């Protein structure tokens, strides 16, 4: 009988059992039933996820504001991002979400080896994601695109020139960049910026890029640590031949992992794809 049903009964029912069937140590002392505990954990995880959405949402908003303001500079800057690696990472994460879901299912079925196997796959996919990130970031550092004091927009300028989207003009004895598009061999200018402004604005793009993907990467890392712990526990449970294991940690991690995936699904197009 659930707590809700107990409550709906009339006042003739005056007592609930003091001895709790603590379900082999899974049920926390503060809970009455396993169902109550599981639902509580789920609601808690969802509340945490909502909070994460607001966390990323705020920086997405800031990014949107500046993308709108400096659309040309941001577009030229984002050409430096590797769409192939980004696409690969997207598929890697999507697949990892699939293996995560299978792991959750296995946990619900108490099949520890299957659970550990799928968790391991998820871990490996996440690892591939991080390795790709490492190479991506490395390339950025090499090309002085990390937004620190050594940042240089040189690469962006050269690539833009090669694509016919940037032209250097001289105005009042100063060099200016004319940003535009080459259509059918003819260059159509949209606006002119000074090299300093161009560098500032493209640096801002990379500021957003590194903060957004960096925070996301941090979340992936944390997820990987948790998954590693879960793998360990699944294997220990298997070796101890525990009849009932608590699948909730895996389910909650699954929810978290799907959030990490969804954040990337938004990040990827917003940073890598739009403007192409």
């Amino acid at each position, binding site marked *: *009988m659930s*707590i809700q049903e*107990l*409550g709906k*009964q009339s*006042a003739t*029912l*005056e*007592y*609930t*059992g*003091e*001895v*709790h*069937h603590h379900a082999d140590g899974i049920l*926390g*002392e*503060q*809970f*009455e039933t396993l169902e*109550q505990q599981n*639902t*509580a954990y789920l*609601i*808690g995880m969802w*509340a*945490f996820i*909502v*909070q*994460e959405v*607001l*966390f*990323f*949402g*705020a*920086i997405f*908003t*800031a990014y949107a*504001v*500046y993308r709108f*303001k*400096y659309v040309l500079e941001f577009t030229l800057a984002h050409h430096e991002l590797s769409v192939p690696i980004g696409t690969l990472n997207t598929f890697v994460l999507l697949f990892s979400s699939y293996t995560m879901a299978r792991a959750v299912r296995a946990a619900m079925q108490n099949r520890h080896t299957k659970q550990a196997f799928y968790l391991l796959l998820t871990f490996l996919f996440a690892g591939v994601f991080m390795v790709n990130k490492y190479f991506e970031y490395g390339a950025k550092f090499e090309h002085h695109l990390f*937004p*620190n*004091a050594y940042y240089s927009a040189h690469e962006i300028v050269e690539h833009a020139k090669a694509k016919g989207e940037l032209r250097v003009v001289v105005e009042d004895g100063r060099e200016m960049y004319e940003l535009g598009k080459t259509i059918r061999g003819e260059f159509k200018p949209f606006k002119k910026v000074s090299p300093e*402004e161009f560098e*500032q*604005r493209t*640096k*801002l793009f*990379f*500021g*957003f890029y590194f*903060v957004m993907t960096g925070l996301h990467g941090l979340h992936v890392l944390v997820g990987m640590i948790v998954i590693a712990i879960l793998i360990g526990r699944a294997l220990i449970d298997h070796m101890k031949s525990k009849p009932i294991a608590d699948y909730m940690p895996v389910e909650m991690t699954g929810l978290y992992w799907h959030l990490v995936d969804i954040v990337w699904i938004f990040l990827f197009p917003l940073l890598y794809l739009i403007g192409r």
Partner: protein
Amino acid sequence: MATTTYTGGQKQNYLNWKTTLASWLFTLDHKRIAILYLVSISIFFLLGGLAAGVVRAELATPKGDLLTSDVYNKMFSAHGIIMIFLFLIPSIPAVFGNFLLPLMIGARDVAFPRLNLLSWYVFMAGAACILIAILRGGIDTGWTFYTPYSSSFAKGEVSLAIVGIFLTGFSSIFTGINFLVTIHKMRAPGMTWFRLPLFVWAMYATSLIQVLGTPVVAITLLLVAVERTFRIGIFDPSLGGDPILFQHLFWFYSHPAVYIMILPAMGVISEVISAFSKRRVFGYHFVAFSSLAIAIIGFLVWGHHMYTSGQSMYAGIVFSFLTWIVAIPSAIKTFNWMATIWKGRVHWDTPMLYALGFMGLFVIGGLTGLHLAALATNVYLTDTYFVVAHFHYVMVGGAIMGYLAALHFWWPKMTGRMYPEGWGKLAALLVFVGFNLTFFPQFLLGYMGMPRRYHSYPEEWAVLNLLSTAGSTVLGLGYLLPVIYLTWSLKYGTVVTERNPWGARGLEWELVDTPPDPHNFERTPIVTRPAYDYNHPEEPTGFVPKPRPVVVGGKDG
């Protein structure tokens, strides 16, 4: 749990059943965590108060002759940051929410006791960062960290302070998540939503704000730290950034934050006025829903801090409209409280004095908020002492009076001791008088145009400022007294063993020992009566069920 007698003949309770340091630092008991918070935030309150004292000392005379400008700026910044992030935001939720929520709803603990403990540790880590930042040279940006000053000009330990605030923010988020789930899932059988004490409704609304608002300020301040380190140009116009964007993002949290501070206090007032008028709160449903209304509408008004920033006139008009609307639910609560006193049986004990004081001072604070909601007058009054007076009336005259009311009301339940009532009344009077003397002159100063965050001012404002400083001494004394006599009462106060010394209604009074047993209730209560059921004094109090034979394996049958 056996009923063991300990030294002093006291029954086992959550305070004495384990007394090692480890049992406190690794506790999972919501009541002990509440006490941990109580001790730490009391210390932070004293630190923040000290900073305020220094500020008022400088302002006693027109010239800036006590401190250098730099030190003064660091003092008011420290005062703001400590009071808001290390005292007001945790205060009632972390102390009384933690202690009372499970008791009020009939649960053995919160939903996530370990998250609760983590909350406290993260809070202390954040506090350490902030205090170290202050000691290592200080921050002079004000608690509002406006850019580009904070991102590109300010020297000092701004980034460390930001890390500290980030951490205390997460403590706040964890507490919010914990309370939301606790209220949803841990209510005893029969404890329906509309049988909940109004304090629980207030905590629910507060937790919504904590979970939804705090992450925004977390990432915003993080970006300021990134800007300081890498100069990426997000908030600094000389690098292509927009300082007004910072203000939007900052106030999106910081306005709802003030409701985090006041809603729990309003919940306390509902409890105290009801208990000391021996009457059910008038208009229960209206008061409950007004808490939710304040939380929701409170997210939509942040632009009223930015009328002069150059944001569009139309945006200003929308924000002003919504700000006037958000005032209405508070008015509804106030009238309902008055109607609760009507035809009640009023006892003028210290908690009730604080509650009545709250009503007076919160109302003044709220009504002066109208001057600030109104566009044309706001432009004149913003960034003057009028605003300073306004928010101190609501945050100190409101939230802190609510905190003190709660402290006195639930002190016997929490500690098993009664505070000395005479001293309680005296302190309440000193706080009330001192508070008004300190802050009422500031309305006048603000109307005359005295700017905020100034350490020197024109001669003609000397008398009012001196009055304000004099008042702050009285106020400080008023705050010091409870620190002394409450601590004194722990050893020498009258011992309270009865469950319900005030004769109030509520599970924490009727079914929980004084002080509470570690596991709160002997049996899970089943609730069959509405909240504040003072209308049926002849029925036996509470819901103590008749014991039935214990059946191993769970519920009956």
